[in-house]
């Protein structure tokens, strides 16, 4: 198998497209967004079904990519996170078909 980086970005739903554009323009070949249901941070809780404004909804964006590409994306993402709420983490994974990434 082949070593890649897995980015996991927990971010506000409204900022999802911004993060997507950053990933895309950095050369990441794909990402998948998963909805969050609830969360806790800095003393506040939120829950999707309990706030009709949906203004605190978060999503989890997962992108698997080569290390070099990921590095390029991280710099821009860091700027995005200066403005938006969000938690970003990167980990090591192995994939089967390296040419897809």
């Amino acid at each position, binding site marked *: 198998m082949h070593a890649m980086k897995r980015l996991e970005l927990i971010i506000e739903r409204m900022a999802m497209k911004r993060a997507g554009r950053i990933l895309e323009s950095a050369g990441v070949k794909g990402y998948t967004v998963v909805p969050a249901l609830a969360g806790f941070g800095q003393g506040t809780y939120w*829950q999707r079904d*309990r706030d009709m*404004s949906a*203004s605190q909804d978060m999503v989890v964006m997962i992108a698997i990519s080569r290390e070099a590409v990921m590095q390029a994306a991280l710099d*821009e993402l860091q700027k*995005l996170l200066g403005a*938006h709420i969000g938690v970003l983490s990167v980990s090591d994974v192995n994939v089967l078909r390296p040419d897809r990434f």
Partner: protein
Amino acid sequence: MLDLALATLLSPVVLFFVLGLIAALLRSSMSIPEAFAKGLAIYLMMAIGLKGGIAMSESPVTLAMIGVFAIAIALSFSLPAIAYGALRVTSKLSRTDAAATAAHYGSISIVTFVAATQLLASANIESSGYMVAVAAVMEAPAIITALFLASRGKQKSEPVAGSESGELFREVLLNASVVVLVGALIIGALIGTDGAAQISPFFVDPFQGVLCLFLLDMGLSAGRGLRHGWRQLDGAALGFGIYMPLISASLAAVASILLGLDTGDMTLLMVLSASASYIAVPAAMRLALPEAKPSVYLTLSLGITFPFNIAVGIPLYLTVAQWLQGGA
């Protein structure tokens, strides 16, 4: 006034709101799924838009109407400035939080508007169909004022990373409530009373009942907002949630007299001005002022001002309008 207040408080719609509020304050685990509530919201906006459009198809566009639109837009532009000033002087909110909150108070709450039309209908007071269109045009201008207020004095800042030109514009002018409200209004005007017959068993008859279900959910949201959010606000900010609608309604009353509106439309313009957005503006603020804290503006608009308007404000504004018109 007391009669009106009682009629309001004992209407099923308000009672279901109170039920939701109590359940949330007692920490019930009940909730209405977001997807279902969002579907109901779209239904409500379609129904309101169609109703307004059908009414408009029957009455010609007059010069007076244009005046109302102009004043409404002016109110939506200027109310945030007052709100911002009040918050900055009295509360400890940051510039960004104050501006974001101000945007909510310049914009409108369509459910508050509907609740007011229901009260008018039950009191047999006429109001114009085009007030739905007035509501629609008051959605967005406040956001522009708020963005201006938030950026004042700052150096011209770079756009947020990843943002695209036009995305805020689209969010503000093409969000679900604007699209559905304006779209249904136009469709209503096109199909007129004849076309309405087929669809009224869905969009007219069950409307009140759907509103009950929706307000149950609003009560749950408001109660939860209050329970989690009030700690983040000082007394001055909480007070703002009550006195700001009164200021807005007063300005709208003055404007209505200048425009020569009758009791029904005057009440509705007061209600629109006094109401605060809790869906469209919060979404726009997450894009435009992401640093502003949602818990601040939502607690105020959904937790304090919405219940206040529903229970006290609407009957009060109607009473004032009747009194100003020399009525009863």
